[in-house]
């Protein structure tokens, strides 16, 4: 283990990697701070820039972007009452009232340090959690993986928004798109329509950028033309005494973020709201919540940022994404020829440790970059849309083209952009399609391998305690989702 950690340090500690982490966090902070741009879009835009890099440099950049975007959604939430990311919605509740009271600097300081503490704690949880889970996962065979993928598909429910049916339809489309190309067992062509370029399947990169970045571009193109307003930005400052006072709230929020983040389908937004309501319940002055309570900001921000480590546990240890961003990160691993999961721990343990250390360094860079971003926010908010979105569009196109130098991929990207736009207009969620697409090849290969080993006997899927455990978890998860859907419907009718 010590040798692996030393090898990881040797791999990571270079000027190039430090610049990559810094640039990633800075870019993530920018993406999160501009309402309309998201962390998912940021990661999708960064992936093409990492083709030429070593894997560790690529992941330093990508994970830095993830962490930066998770934090900076709070900046517009506190200053202009507009969450930069959905996860920062709970921060608005107390952050903006504090700004209205002239305490915006305090709110920003509390948000920053709560985020950093939550982030560090969750990264430590990730290191221990992923190592333990990966050891367990070495006992997994194709049947266990099949049941794990089945369980993972229940995350579709968590990211389906208002309609589970539409989420399932989107996931089924992702599933179909995932089958395009040569099938994983017999190399039989499927839906290639005689095109050689389709034998490798649909480009993950083209689909990802089309769905998340190009469709957003079309949505933003519709928004009415408006003047950019100047924003007054206070200096972020808070005393250590106040941070110490809020430590129990921050620790509780971090624990909630880690646990909820590691459960497939939940993620940052529910974690922030649950942490907020728990802080209010535990507070001696609950009446101050919603009117400008620092506890409210600390609870929401610590939980929001702590979900990063939690969500990375199933991704790193099992190769299963827990939410949309980790689904995109799984795509990034695959693009770099790496398959997260027990195999990654067995074959590239030094890289795994290097990624963990990079995450800790990114957390420590956050205060420096965060403080600068808060100071620069008035300028970031002033960037005109007619400058921002054309540059994003050309970055999408060049990124997709750069991967394979294939104009076909550009058409595929445009096609998915139009499809994603149409889906959003008809209130179909995009994330389940991405999850279905990413999980289909993993699931299909596992199922077919298991059936080949068992000579077609389907009982192989319930032949070991681990498979049965995942089957039970899937049934419980489906029962919980069904009950919640029925309750929601009753609530609407009432």
């Amino acid at each position, binding site marked *: 283990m010590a040798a692996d950690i030393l090898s990881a340090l040797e791999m990571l500690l270079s000027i190039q990697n430090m610049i990559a982490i810094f640039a990633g966090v800075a870019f993530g902070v920018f993406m999160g701070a501009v309402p309309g741009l998201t962390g998912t879009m940021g990661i999708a835009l960064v992936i093409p820039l990492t083709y030429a890099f070593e894997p560790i440099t690529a992941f330093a950049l990508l994970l830095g972007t993830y962490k930066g975007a998770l934090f900076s959604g709070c900046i517009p939430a506190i200053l202009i009452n507009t969450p930069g990311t959905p996860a920062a919605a709970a921060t608005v509740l107390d952050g903006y009232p504090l700004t209205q009271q002239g305490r915006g600097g305090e709110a920003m300081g509390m948000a920053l340090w709560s985020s950093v503490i939550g982030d560090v704690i969750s990264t430590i949880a990730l290191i221990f959690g992923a190592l333990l889970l990966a050891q367990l996962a070495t006992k997994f065979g194709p049947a266990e993986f099949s049941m794990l993928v089945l369980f993972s598909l229940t995350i579709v429910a968590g990211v389906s928004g208002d309609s589970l049916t539409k989420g399932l339809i989107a996931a089924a489309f992702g599933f*179909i798109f995932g089958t395009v190309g040569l099938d994983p*067992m017999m190399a039989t062509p*499927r839906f290639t329509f005689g095109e050689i370029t389709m034998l490798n399947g649909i480009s993950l990169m083209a689909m990802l950028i089309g769905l998340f970045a190009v469709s957003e571009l079309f949505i933003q193109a*519709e928004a009415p033309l408006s003047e950019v307003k100047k924003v007054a930005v206070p200096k972020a400052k808070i005393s250590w005494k106040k941070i110490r006072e809020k430590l129990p709230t921050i620790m509780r929020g971090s624990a909630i973020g880690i646990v909820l983040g590691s459960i497939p389908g939940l993620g940052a937004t529910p974690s922030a709201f649950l942490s907020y309501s728990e802080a209010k319940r535990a507070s001696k002055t609950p009446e101050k919540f919603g009117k400008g309570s620092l506890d409210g900001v600390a609870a929401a921000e610590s939980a929001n940022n702590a979900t990063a480590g939690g969500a990375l546990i199933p991704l790193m240890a099992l190769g299963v994404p827990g939410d949309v961003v980790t689904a995109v990160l799984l795509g990034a691993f695959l693009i770099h020829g790496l398959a997260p999961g027990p195999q990654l721990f067995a074959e590239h343990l030094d890289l795994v440790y290097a990624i963990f250390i990079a995450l800790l360094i990114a957390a420590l860079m956050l205060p420096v970059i965060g403080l600068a971003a808060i100071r620069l926010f008035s300028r970031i908010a002033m960037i005109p849309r*007619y400058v921002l979105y*054309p540059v994003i569009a*050309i970055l999408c196109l060049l990124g997709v083209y750069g991967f394979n130098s294939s104009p076909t991929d550009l058409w595929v990207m445009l096609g998915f952009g139009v499809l994603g736009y149409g889906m959003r207009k008809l209130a179909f969620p995009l994330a389940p399609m991405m999850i279905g697409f990413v999980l289909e090849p993993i699931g299909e290969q596992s199922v*077919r391998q298991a059936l*080949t080993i068992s000579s077609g006997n389907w009982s192989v899927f319930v032949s070991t305690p681990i498979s049965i455990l995942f089957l039970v978890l899937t049934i419980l998860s489906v029962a919980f989702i069904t009950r919640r859907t029925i309750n929601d419907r009753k609530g609407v009718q009432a």
Partner: protein
Amino acid sequence: MNIYKLDMISGAGLLVLALVLYYLLIPNFVADNGIGAMSPRFFPKLGTMLIGAGGCILIAASLRSSGSPRKAEVSSALNQPQKLSPLLSAAAIAGFILVFQWFGYFFAAPLLIAALMIVFGGRNLLAILLLPAAATAILFAVFSFGLNLPLQ
């Protein structure tokens, strides 16, 4: 148009698509070689059945809810003034791909950036001339020399 009507239309469209996939596209474009424990058609058919079932549920749900008072609008964005802009943006991107294939990056990139600047509300002529030129040159340097990803 309210969301229930659109859901009914989407459901019907999905049902038709599922039937086309199941009876036309899968038999013609996914070979069934009969080797192994599971046919290569199994997963495409599973996805198709899910789409078809989802379409039926959408139709049923929209028929049941059409009389209810909860008539949510599809999206407020539908009522916003820049209705043509997404179409123009898509056309600009399609134009970029064609010009890029025929004439190369240095013709396509500035045209796309300038077109999108106008679509997104840019009216300053100097900015529309300078920004595309500068962005084209900077991105070429970044991709070709910085990232070693040739754009020609």
